[in-house]
């Protein structure tokens, strides 16, 4: 970050700068007694300084409540947001009936600071609080994603654009048991430059230039750039569409430059082998003139340095089609296994809501709740989002892309402890808050489950009155778990809210990511949902404010809420049965 000075404010001898400086020091806890004395002196003698102080404090108060709450901050987004067609907004409203617009909501965030009254004084007040009607009607229900004029700021480009070092991506795997970057290799994983090794199995890698490589283990491939890789040993087959011409594989001391084709390269103790199945490649060696190989040609370059002509034997190399056959066989096995598990899972009496997203109809805008016994009232309404490929080829998921994309649900009832579980594919974290599940309001006992742009999982349940401002200990942020190299990878996220132990736990892929205790007075022992949204936030009417954009950029493939804090082993089990 560049901590440069801001020229426009360096006005000469601003009489209030000293006051502001002293106030900052006080807030940082670094103002000494002399400073306090000086501060009082300035204010005592100067009416204008007192006015300035009052304004500064009012401003600070608003800054804290706006920037600090998280609940009410409609921060501009990094990427320019798209306008949501009115029809989408209308769908949002009609698909949930009138429920959003009829919920009385308070006209100001401060209005939610009601707990002291509600808790300590009289329940009747709560009723009174819910009888209010906002000053204006709920004309904006469902349109909170409407981008505000302030959300686009073309004048200020980010100082440093976030970047990923990825050069390729894993798109298919069969029988591979390897790690990359210290993580188990899975499809959708971005690969950064460096050595890539598999002991067995097959992996399909798509280079960002457009070339696709099927690598057969045991093999070692060094990824250099998005159009260059070095094969140290093992076999690969490359398919290179015209757009990726020039894609190069180095094998031993050969450079195999593609001219739009499909070819195989094998490196063994004996030497390097290049075979062309379609199109042409150029083979370069030291200072020799380049050799052009055409369809059906092959050369063997042995360790002694001699070239030998041969005939291409495509069947030596796993071709992409039969590879996919293997992939889909294995996939459907896992998919079928998951389906069987899901049949019994949906009968778990602790389930409050469960959506498996396994319904590929593009225009079916109803998301069935899969709990058994069936409760149609828990079905969700899909707005904007469209089906896309799920964890397995035969399973669908729902993709959230646009600021308006969401699933509206309405979940009645009151609960105590809760657990959330979701299979999520995050393409990128574009928003400050990237929603998994948010209740419309943020009233007593209502949970908000989301991911921050930093890649931290964030969970909180509103407890009114207790712990305002900096004493708020309810926000439970995990360490950073997501980074751009995980883009496109299916992840299992889970969070448990245990009101008896006063603890929140975050899990990633079945493993505990973070555990945090909450002061008992800040734990809402009664939890509830009401109108809520998966993959976005549907804010109740807030006439005076800009709209928050919190849509997830990615897909959700399974989503469940439980009325109990699941144990670590139960979460591990969900992960094991659901992993792709």
């Amino acid at each position, binding site marked *: 970050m560049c901590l440069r000075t801001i020229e426009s404010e360096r006005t000469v001898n601003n009489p209030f700068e000293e006051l502001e400086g002293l106030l900052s020091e006080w807030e940082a806890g670094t103002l000494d007694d002399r400073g306090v004395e000086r501060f009082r002196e300035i204010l005592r003698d100067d009416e204008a300084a007192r006015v300035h102080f009052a304004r500064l404090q009012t401003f600070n108060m*608003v800054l*804290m409540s706006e*920037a600090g709450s998280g609940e009410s901050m409609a921060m501009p987004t990094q990427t320019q947001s798209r306008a949501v067609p009115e029809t989408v907004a209308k769908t949002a409203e009609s698909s949930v009936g009138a429920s959003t617009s009829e919920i009385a909501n308070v006209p100001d965030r401060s209005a939610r600071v009601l707990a002291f*009254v509600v808790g300590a004084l009289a329940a009747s007040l709560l009723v009174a609080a819910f009888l209010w009607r906002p000053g204006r009607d709920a004309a904006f229900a469902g349109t909170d994603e409407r981008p505000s004029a302030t959300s686009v700021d073309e004048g200020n480009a980010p100082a440093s654009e976030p970047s990923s070092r990825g050069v390729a991506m894993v798109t298919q795997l069969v029988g591979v048991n390897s790690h990359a970057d210290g993580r188990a290799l899975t499809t959708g994983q971005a690969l950064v430059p460096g050595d890539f090794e598999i002991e067995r199995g097959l992996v399909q890698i798509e280079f960002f230039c457009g070339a696709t490589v099927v690598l057969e283990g045991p093999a070692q491939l060094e990824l250099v750039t998005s159009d260059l890789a070095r094969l140290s040993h093992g076999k690969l087959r490359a398919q290179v569409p015209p757009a990726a011409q020039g894609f190069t594989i180095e094998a031993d001391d050969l450079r195999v430059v593609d001219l739009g084709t499909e070819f195989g390269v094998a490196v063994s103790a004996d030497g390097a082998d290049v075979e062309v199945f379609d199109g042409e490649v150029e083979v370069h060696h030291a200072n020799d003139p380049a050799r052009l190989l055409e369809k059906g040609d092959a050369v063997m370059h042995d360790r002694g340095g001699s070239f030998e002509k041969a005939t291409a034997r495509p069947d030596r190399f796993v071709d992409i089609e039969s590879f996919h056959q293997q992939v889909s066989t294995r996939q459907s096995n896992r998919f079928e296994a998951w389906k069987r598990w899901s049949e019994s899972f949906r009968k778990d009496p602790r389930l409050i809501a469960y959506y498996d997203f396994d319904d590929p109809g593009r225009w079916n805008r109803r998301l069935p709740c899969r709990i058994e016994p069936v409760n149609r009232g828990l079905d969700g309404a899909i707005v904007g989002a469209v089906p896309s490929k799920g964890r397995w080829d035969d399973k669908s998921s729902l993709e959230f892309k646009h600021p308006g994309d969401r699933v509206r649900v309405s979940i009645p009832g009151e609960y105590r402890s809760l657990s959330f579980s979701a299979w999520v594919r995050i393409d990128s974290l574009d928003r400050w808050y990237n929603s998994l599940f948010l209740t419309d309001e943020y009233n007593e006992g209502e949970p908000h489950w989301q991911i921050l742009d930093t890649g931290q999982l964030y969970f909180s349940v509103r407890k009114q009155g207790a712990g305002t401002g900096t004493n708020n200990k309810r926000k439970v942020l995990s360490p950073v778990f997501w980074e751009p190299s995980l883009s496109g990878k299916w992840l299992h996220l889970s969070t448990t809210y245990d009101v008896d132990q006063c603890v929140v736990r975050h899990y990633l892929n079945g493993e505990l990511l973070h555990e945090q205790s909450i002061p008992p007075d800040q734990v809402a022992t009664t939890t509830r949902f009401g109108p809520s949204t998966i993959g976005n936030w549907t804010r109740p009417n807030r006439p005076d404010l800009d709209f928050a954009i919190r849509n997830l950029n990615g897909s959700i493939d399974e989503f469940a809420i439980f009325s109990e804090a699941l144990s670590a082993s139960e979460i591990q089990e969900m992960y094991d049965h659901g992993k792709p």
Partner: protein
Amino acid sequence: MTGIYATRIYVTAENRTEQFVQHLTEHQSRLYGYVYSLLGNHSRASDVVQETNLVLWRKIDEYDPAKPFSSWAFGIARYQVLSSLRDQGRERVLVDSELAEQLSGILEVEMDRLDDYRTPLRHCLARLDEEHRALIHQRYFREQSIADIAAALGRTSGAVKVALTRVRQKLFRCVSEQLNLNEL
């Protein structure tokens, strides 16, 4: 006749309570801002605001819907602040009782306009560079300490403190301009 009359009274009483609660909740930020400005300590300010709420609630019978709620509420808050300052013990405070009296009038006026600041602030936040906005976000939402922010950025605490102060000043100037504060 009696029946209708009785009903009307009942409705009126209910409306009064509703109105009271609405005002009270709407004024929480203002009250907090007022109290915090004078006490300079967040946990104490929370306590005093709660006490103030309690007192207001107990005195609901004195509440006159025809009169501005804020002056009534600020009056009671002021009393609570002053008694808190009296009982301060050895805790450090930024403002002494005398200065608190001097400041309370202007604070009431300004805090009453608090909601006017919100929209301009959002506009001004949007105008910040990404990095400065991130700084505000880290400090006020993540509640990271200056030392933590500094560590994450590989900067000294001093540099971050200065940067934060400047961003805040910039924001404040921007908000002031939008509100035409300097011309009032």
